[in-house]
């Protein structure tokens, strides 16, 4: 690789770095951190890690905000930075770490692979469609016996990258049903009677499991939990008009068309792609890092850890557990170029 020189191991002095943010990325970055801490221990080879990495699932909103204010070293986010955020702290970068996706889950016992599109979802979340046996849902799902049950929409109450992805998808599918001005990590959900706000992806899974007739958007890293909770997974309409489930193949197919288009700052929406076999709600998981750090050792450790994530951490042993897809080589190079900018 002709890329920039990046440290292959952390600095010699013991140091700690902190991460908070995206609950979608949390299971993966925790697994990375755990492995990384066991790889590099203080001499003599005792159990103490050379770099202590603390991780916290607080939602992408907190991740971005904390990275902006410098409260944490790494903010995790499913959403890229807005231009206003970039303007506040110009040295912030969003560095892609993996490719993720979001599933649409629902609690309708016995009904599998319900077909849904952005218009329907927007109409549910704006209260235009309130019952599961609505003709519009039936039209997409001929032959499925839908119950006369109230639709309970679940949304994230905390600032959430998942909310950003979900609102992006609804808007991309049907801008008249969900306006672009309401695409955000802190999007406003119209007051629909009974609608519930939840904290984090974990809260979404628990809330949906407890509420018959619910619909929720949940990161694929929680797929195991949603299956265990007996939630259905929707086939979601993509930009080519096909209905697809989020699988390794469809996520990879959906991302393929965006890889070459990814700009140097890695700010790109991969929502509602045109690939026929591609899943439409996919994204890069980002580390939000201030490239101007105050402490040289910390900067070196962040560089080393993030480089390890995109270089060594992209194996199936890490990604399969959370249903993420690895970054292609070209995007790894872009990420490395951004990582190399982190300094004191």
């Amino acid at each position: 690789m002709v890329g920039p020189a990046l440290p292959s191991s952390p600095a010699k002095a013991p140091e700690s770095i902190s991460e908070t943010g995206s609950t979608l990325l949390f299971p993966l970055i925790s697994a990375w951190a755990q492995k990384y801490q066991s790889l590099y221990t203080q001499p003599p080879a005792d159990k103490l890690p050379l770099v202590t990495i603390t991780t916290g699932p607080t939602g992408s909103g907190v991740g971005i905000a904390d990275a902006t204010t410098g409260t944490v070293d790494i903010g995790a986010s499913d959403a890229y930075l807005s231009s206003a955020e970039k303007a506040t702290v110009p040295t912030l970068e969003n560095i892609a770490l993996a490719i993720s996706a979001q599933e649409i889950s629902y609690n309708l016992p016995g009904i599998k692979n319900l077909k849904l599109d952005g218009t329907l979802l927007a109409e549910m979340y704006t209260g235009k469609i309130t019952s599961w046996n609505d003709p519009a849902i039936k039209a997409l799902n001929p032959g499925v016996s839908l119950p006369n049950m109230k639709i309970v929409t679940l949304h994230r109450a905390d600032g959430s990258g998942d909310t950003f992805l979900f609102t992006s998808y609804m808007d991309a599918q049907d801008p008249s049903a969900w306006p672009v001005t309401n695409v955000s990590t802190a999007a406003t959900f119209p007051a629909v009677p009974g609608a519930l706000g939840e904290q984090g992806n974990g809260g979404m899974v628990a809330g949906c499991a407890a509420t018959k007739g619910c619909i929720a958007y949940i990161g694929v890293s929680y797929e195991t939990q949603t299956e265990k909770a007996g939630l259905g997974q929707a086939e979601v309409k993509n930009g080519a008009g096909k209905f697809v489930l989020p699988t390794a193949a469809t996520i990879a197919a959906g991302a393929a068309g965006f890889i070459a288009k990814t700009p140097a700052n890695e700010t790109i929406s991969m929502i509602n792609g045109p690939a026929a076999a591609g899943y439409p709600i996919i994204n890069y998981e980002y580390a939000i890092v201030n490239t101007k750090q105050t402490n040289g050792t910390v900067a070196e450790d962040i560089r080393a850890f993030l480089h390890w994530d995109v270089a060594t951490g992209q194996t199936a042993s890490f990604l399969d557990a959370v249903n993420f897809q690895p970054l292609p080589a070209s995007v790894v190079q872009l990420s490395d170029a951004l990582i190399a900018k982190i300094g004191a």
Partner: protein
Amino acid sequence: MTSSASMLKPAGGAGASPLPPRVSDWLRASLRDGSVIRWTGAAGALIPVAALVFILIILGVKAWPAIGYNGWGFFTGRVWSIGNLYGNPTSSGGVEHLPGAQFGALPSIIGTLGSSAIALVVAVPVSLGTALVIVERLPRGLSSIVGAFLELLAGLPSVVIGLWGGVTFGPFIARDVTPFIARNMPNVPVLNYFRGEVGNGQGMLTSGLVLALMVTPIIAATTRDLIRQVPILPREGAIALGMSEFETARKVTLPWVGGGVIGAVVLGLGRALGETMAVAMTCGAALGSVPTNIYGTMTTIAATVVQTVDGAFQDGTGFALRSLAELCLVLMVITLATNILARLLVRRVSGTALPVGRGL
């Protein structure tokens, strides 16, 4: 420490100049004439006043641009939206904000007042009963044990109550209690708010009941201390006149401490209005939602602030934070207004300002 430091210092001098008065001497002198006590006492007395004024001023300054931009619509609007986070900030009237920013506090205000009202409706009778039983019915040993539990309950962290309310209590009443009520309540005004969808246990009723649990010990413990101060003679007189125990409590004991009880209720109301964590965990966190029945999901001012503050930090213009400051200001005004109102009421009823005894 002080003396050794001052002994080292002049050693480098010529030795002719007299030693400066030692700090310890000065301290001893001021302790003796009481000026230390006077000054620390004065400072201590001023700090609470200064803190309240300071908080009000800071909130006011922070919220000022938001007050101008949001206008009266703040109290009638139902949408709480920080605007398009990915759009370019715009400016109206010199106030920079995100495009489409819109802040309406009506649902939060309704939720705050509604859940607190439910809490008081439930907590006041329970608290008065508890206080009367502790003072007048239970044997001394048992009464002190019950009283101790009451105080323990008052000290329970709100997050513990919130977790219980959200995970256990809410789903329980939504499954086993409220469907029955919702089905059988007659469809007449007021009572029809008890009909309809009961949801999954997060909402106004659950929040109100959880708040009731939190304010009951405050009202009960204060009322208990008040009732203990009612002289025995009037009560004995009432019983001698043939009044039942209930009549004695209603006609003699409670009126005797009436003003204090109102004060105790306001203490509880203050807690209910501002309670954040327990409500945030049980209200359903439905920003912008005005519940259509008593079970509906909703939000309160405090819950809105805690749920949206992280999103507000993402607003590069800072306007979302200013609007949250305005919301906090509204909560403070509501709380202060109820307190002042209660003080006036208490003074009119009994002449003493606030409940005596050990307010919690």
